[in-house]
């Protein structure tokens, strides 16, 4: 694996990783949600010592020749454990790591896949470059310096501007990049063979949606997503497998309530704090982590919609 990396910089990074990442670890538990489609379900929680940062779903798809990895978890160690889970299930090797978006709970495990090309939205590199240092510091605060050690430098080898196909051997994956929604770098992965759609955080189930992009853009993207001919989806947060497209309904309702509520406050001449106090309150009982994210969603959506 090391001989694949020709650049000195990459070699140095690998040495660093070799020093900080465990060579092996307990494989992550995974569920086969469709033939050859394996998913590890993260906790619906904020990253904390009791969940070791394992708060996002991730998975892999096994073709006749190769494996594709979809998101890698919130710490380098989770990436190693995902790698072990892959090795325990198949002797075929990962040829691509696909990052569904920039958030640390989905990408910090990339460190365990140093020799494997990374695919992501065309905006992913710049977006993550601007945030990675802040994300690293936050992880060190949440889980300790050890958990944040060995995070790999930002790397996107296969930027996706619209759509890219990946052939794993008798198995085509379709990678689709979307306009600003959950973030400005959301990407989905569709396995045509089984009709399974990895939505990344374009779909939250049970976990309240987090707006780090644009709520109205997200609603438009939901309309587009709904037409994807999938039979099941793997959300970025929530169960390992949900029915498609019905699983979009609750999230669409929440975002609609959010946008309409903020527009009402704006129309009445209210400020951000009025909006934070009231908007989407009726959604509180329907979601986990509501208080952790709804006030921020309202704040972000207010700052977005006041320019309308």
């Amino acid at each position, binding site marked *: 694996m090391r001989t694949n990396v020709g650049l000195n910089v990459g070699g140095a990074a690998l040495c660093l990783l070799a020093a900080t990442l465990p060579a092996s670890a307990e494989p992550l538990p995974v569920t086969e949600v469709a033939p050859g489609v394996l998913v590890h379900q993260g906790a619906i929680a904020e990253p904390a010592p009791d969940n070791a940062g394992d708060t996002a779903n991730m998975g892999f798809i096994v073709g006749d020749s190769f494996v594709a990895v979809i998101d890698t978890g919130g710490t380098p160690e989770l990436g190693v454990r995902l790698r072990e889970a892959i090795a325990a299930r198949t002797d075929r090797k990962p040829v691509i790591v696909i990052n569904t978006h920039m958030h640390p709970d989905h990408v910090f495990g990339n460190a365990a896949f140093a020799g494997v090309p990374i695919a992501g939205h065309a905006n992913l590199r*710049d977006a993550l*470059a*601007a945030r990675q240092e802040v994300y690293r510091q936050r992880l060190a605060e949440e889980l300790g310096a050890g958990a944040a050690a060995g995070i790999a430098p930002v790397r996107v080898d296969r930027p996706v501007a619209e759509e890219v196909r990946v052939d794993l051997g008798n198995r085509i994956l379709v990678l689709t990049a979307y306009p600003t929604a959950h973030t*400005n770098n959301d990407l989905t992965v569709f396995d045509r063979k089984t009709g399974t759609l990895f939505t990344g955080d374009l779909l939250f189930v049970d976990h309240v949606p987090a707006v780090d992009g*644009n709520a109205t853009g997200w609603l438009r993207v939901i309309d587009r997503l709904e037409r994807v001919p999938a039979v099941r989806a793997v959300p970025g947060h929530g169960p390992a497998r949900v029915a498609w497209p019905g699983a979009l309904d609750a999230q669409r309702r929440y975002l609609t309530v959010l946008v309409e509520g903020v527009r009402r406050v704006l129309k009445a001449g209210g*400020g951000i*704090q009025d909006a934070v106090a009231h908007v989407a309150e009726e959604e509180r009982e329907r979601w986990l982590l509501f208080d952790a994210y709804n006030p921020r969603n309202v704040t*972000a959506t207010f700052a977005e919609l006041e320019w309308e």
Partner: protein
Amino acid sequence: MMRHPPMGLLAGLLIVLSTPGLAATDAAEDAARWDILQGMYFKDRPVEEAGALIRIDAPARAHDAALVPVRIEVEPSLRLKSLSLLVDKNPVPLAATFRFGPASAGSSIETRVRVNEYTNLHAVGETQDGRFLMTVVHVKAAGGCSAPAVKDPQEAMARLGRIKVKLPETLSPGSPATAQVMVSHPNSSGLQFDQVSRTYIPAHYIQSIIIRAGGQTVLEADTDISISEDPNLRFSVLPTGGGSLEVVAQDTKGATFTHSVPLTTGAAKGDPAL
């Protein structure tokens, strides 16, 4: 008077006060910091407690450290010459100074700030007779100054310099109205790090916003990197009956952005430029 502190002094201040202390010493540390800031920005002139005359309304725990709404309520009968907002523990503590002109209808003001760590916010009003009145609140938030800029950089650059003005649906001459001015600008703090280029994104922010109504000054704001991206001000204006509300904003690269909306009384408002 409200100039930047010399960098050497500021650096010294930060070193002195960044020494980790026990929780019990936090209050003492906050007081020591304020002593230094007061000397730096108010030239050792006495600063009195404002009591009920000035009040800060800010969330005790911010939802987004890069966008913390702060409203400074000033007792309507108290007409200030200027009002300063300080985020004590930010790298540049003085967020903004507002000087009020004849077309101001009151000294209350609302804006949004970045908060870098748990900190006190101070508002200091300067009365017409030159006294300083101070009030303080504590805000829990962290990371606001180095927080990544803008969620959608392409959209932000396309919108840079756009100014939006919001006025009530109806205006009557001589009767105070709340207006809002928004300036689209990344307001880069110079503290945002790009991991690919291994450099800090250069500071680039709005440093002055001047607002006039019917040719008379409503307020002049000197603003700094503690103000959130897309600087946003809500304030009281005294419509004169006709004329326009004019906004002139200037950034640190010397760019000037202007916008003007009619102050037609009684007419439905919107923003014709949008």
